[in-house]
């Protein structure tokens, strides 16, 4: 048994099926996503005596973004590179193949999505392509396990055999069209010349070995046409969003969470844990308050976390994974491009904004995909102020659905108006120029159920590990405050704000404190206040408005400092408090 494993690095453009192959080879899970840039981490697994590394999708290997830097490092000590290529997008994907040829390492090309290419009538001359590239080309459809045995057979070769196979076809990318081979990773001065060379090589390969049908009229093509035409695309998009809102706000929150929170956790679990512990804890003691009190670590924390938030978060991530894997997300980016350009963003910013409805913290990290510092600033400000995260959003929806339609409409208008005004304002005052939309759209595909479930499970687990400690911290702080009678003091201090400015009951002071620690903790508190009947309809609207706009949670503030620096972070943080209370006060004054 050898101790040093050989390194196999999977490389390819975004959405070409690398991760499906990775899963088939190693048996472990890797994130498969339909939007460029969501698999930033390297996934590693084992196959026989190979260490298999799955890199993020890239169009070329340079230092343009994190994905490319990560891929470049992974390639440096590869023993074999497996370049996965989308057979329906050869003219795009062969650019990377040509660049990889010039790395001079053993290379294997897998022509994935052959089933789709055949269905679309694309004709590929495989022997010719193989001959010109000088490396083995394997036709495949990894989703159907087609071609997998050929890859496995290739991997069974000894290192000497692999090297020998590669040495018989030297010459690099330029061999296909003559001339000297360019360096694999050229410096800035040479970059464009090398790019032109790889482009020419890829184009020539396509001219020689690829023939397209005249028209495609599959169902996906017709649906895509409807989606990309505003007259039909916008209503479809609206319908989709309404379905999502209904699914999360009504079905999940009221039916599912109503059962998990109201019955399973709120009754069965609550009775069990209090029955178990209360005989041993004096009712006025500190431990009673800390563990099973109103804000107890074993009562409020698990009931909110598992009963209320977890089902909502799972639902949200399922919806997001569905949109990512189907290729809908980039279509939404296209439809939103015109509106977003007024905020100094391009349609691509839909990704962090929509992700923000899942978790603002993760969304702040994903603002890196935006093309300029200016866009990242604008997106971060919009995310922190006007985008509620999934758990908070689901609760806001649930609370909002309990409002009379007129208040629900008012709420939607207020948040939308603030989002728009902030975007317009930032676009005016921030210096510089934003980048334009320039995006390769992945094909519309029916997502794979297994992949959806795995992805949702992974992200939901991430939510629990991320939110769990913060909830415990929040429970601890609030229980301490409660035990030492800090609440009356806090209520008194905040009274000018809560009762004076906003016209809310004093108890809402605790909600704002909870929100500072974790936004959804505060939202969960608001939910129980509203369902408990302690707020009137106008008061609910005011509280909802303030809670939606209020400061981002501690975790996102930390990421905000890291991503945007102290000045931007402090401005956004302070700004969100001021805007939240100002908007709340305005609503309170009008109603």
């Amino acid at each position, binding site marked *: 048994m050898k101790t040093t494993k050989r390194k196999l690095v999977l490389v390819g453009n975004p959405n070409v099926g690398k991760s499906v192959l990775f899963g088939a080879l190693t048996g472990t899970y890797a994130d498969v996503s339909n939007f460029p840039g969501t698999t930033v981490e390297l996934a590693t697994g084992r196959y026989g005596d190979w260490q298999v590394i799955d890199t993020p999708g890239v*169009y*070329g290997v340079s230092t343009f973004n994190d994905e490319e830097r990560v891929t470049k490092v992974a390639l440096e000590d590869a023993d074999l590179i497996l370049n996965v290529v989308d057979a*329906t*997008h*050869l*003219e*795009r994907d062969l*650019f*990377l193949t040509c660049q990889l040829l010039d790395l001079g390492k053993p290379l294997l090309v897998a022509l994935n999505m052959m089933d789709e290419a055949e269905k*679309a009538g*694309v004709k590929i001359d495989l022997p010719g392509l193989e001959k010109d590239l000088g490396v083995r080309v394997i036709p495949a459809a990894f989703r159907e396990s087609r071609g997998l045995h050929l890859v496995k057979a290739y991997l069974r070769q000894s290192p000497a055999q692999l090297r020998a196979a590669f040495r018989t076809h030297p010459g690099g990318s330029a061999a296909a069209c003559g001339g000297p081979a360019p360096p694999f990773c050229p410096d800035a001065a040479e*970059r*464009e010349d090398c*790019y*032109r060379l*790889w*482009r*020419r090589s*890829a*184009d020539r390969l*396509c001219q020689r070995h*690829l023939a*397209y049908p005249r028209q*495609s009229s599959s169902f996906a093509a017709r649906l*895509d*046409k409807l989606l*990309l*035409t*505003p007259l039909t695309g916008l209503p479809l998009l609206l319908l989709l969003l309404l379905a999502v809102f209904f699914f999360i706000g009504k079905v999940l929150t009221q039916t599912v969470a109503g059962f998990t929170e109201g019955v399973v956790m709120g009754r069965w679990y609550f009775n069990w844990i209090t029955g178990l512990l209360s005989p041993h804890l004096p009712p006025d003691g500190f431990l009673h308050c800390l563990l099973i009190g109103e804000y107890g670590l074993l009562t409020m924390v698990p009931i909110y976390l598992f009963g209320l938030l977890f089902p909502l978060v799972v639902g949200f991530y399922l919806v997001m994974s569905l949109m990512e894997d189907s290729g809908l997300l*980039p279509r939404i*980016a*296209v*439809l939103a*491009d*015109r509106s977003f*350009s007024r905020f100094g963003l*391009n*349609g691509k910013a839909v990704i962090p904004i929509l992700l923000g409805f899942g978790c603002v913290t993760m969304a702040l990290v994903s603002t890196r995909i935006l093309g300029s510092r200016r866009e990242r600033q604008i997106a971060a400000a919009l995310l922190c102020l006007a985008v509620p995260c999934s758990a908070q959003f689901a609760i806001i929806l649930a609370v909002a659905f309990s409002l009379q339609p007129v208040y629900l409409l008012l709420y939607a208008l207020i948040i939308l108006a603030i989002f728009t005004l902030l975007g317009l304002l930032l676009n005016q005052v921030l210096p510089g120029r934003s980048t*334009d*939309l*320039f*995006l*390769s*759209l992945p*094909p519309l595909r029916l997502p794979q159920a297994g992949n959806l479930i795995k992805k949702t499970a992974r992200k939901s687990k991430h939510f629990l590990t991320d939110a769990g400690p913060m909830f415990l911290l929040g429970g601890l702080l609030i229980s301490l405050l409660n035990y030492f009678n800090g609440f009356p003091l806090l209520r008194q201090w905040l009274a000018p704000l809560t009762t004076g400015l906003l016209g809310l009951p004093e108890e809402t002071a605790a909600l704002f404190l909870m929100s500072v620690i974790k936004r959804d903790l505060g939202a969960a508190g608001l939910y129980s206040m509203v369902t408990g009947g302690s707020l009137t309809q106008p008061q609910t609207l005011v509280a909802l408005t303030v809670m939606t706009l209020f400061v981002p949670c501690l975790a996102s503030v930390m990421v905000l400092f890291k991503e945007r620096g102290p000045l931007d972070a402090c401005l956004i943080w302070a700004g969100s408090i001021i805007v939240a209370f100002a908007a709340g006060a305005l609503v309170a004054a009008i109603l």
Partner: protein
Amino acid sequence: MLRSLNLAEARKGQFLMMGSVADPAVRLLALRLGLGEGSRVRCLHKLPGGPVILALGLQKIAVGRRLARQIPVRKERV
């Protein structure tokens, strides 16, 4: 005959030949996606005031309207 125009002026369904893109960063990304000077594309859709969607083989590429105005193209006879 061939006539010079920019991508934003192209009409839906037209076959076009790409000219040279002025912005170096966009030019490099375009080369990677398969769009070089002389590439033949088709204008698939134009969203009113919004992006132009190009077809390059079976690939679809969305180009923001402001950027489309800066990309010279020539109309191709089919």
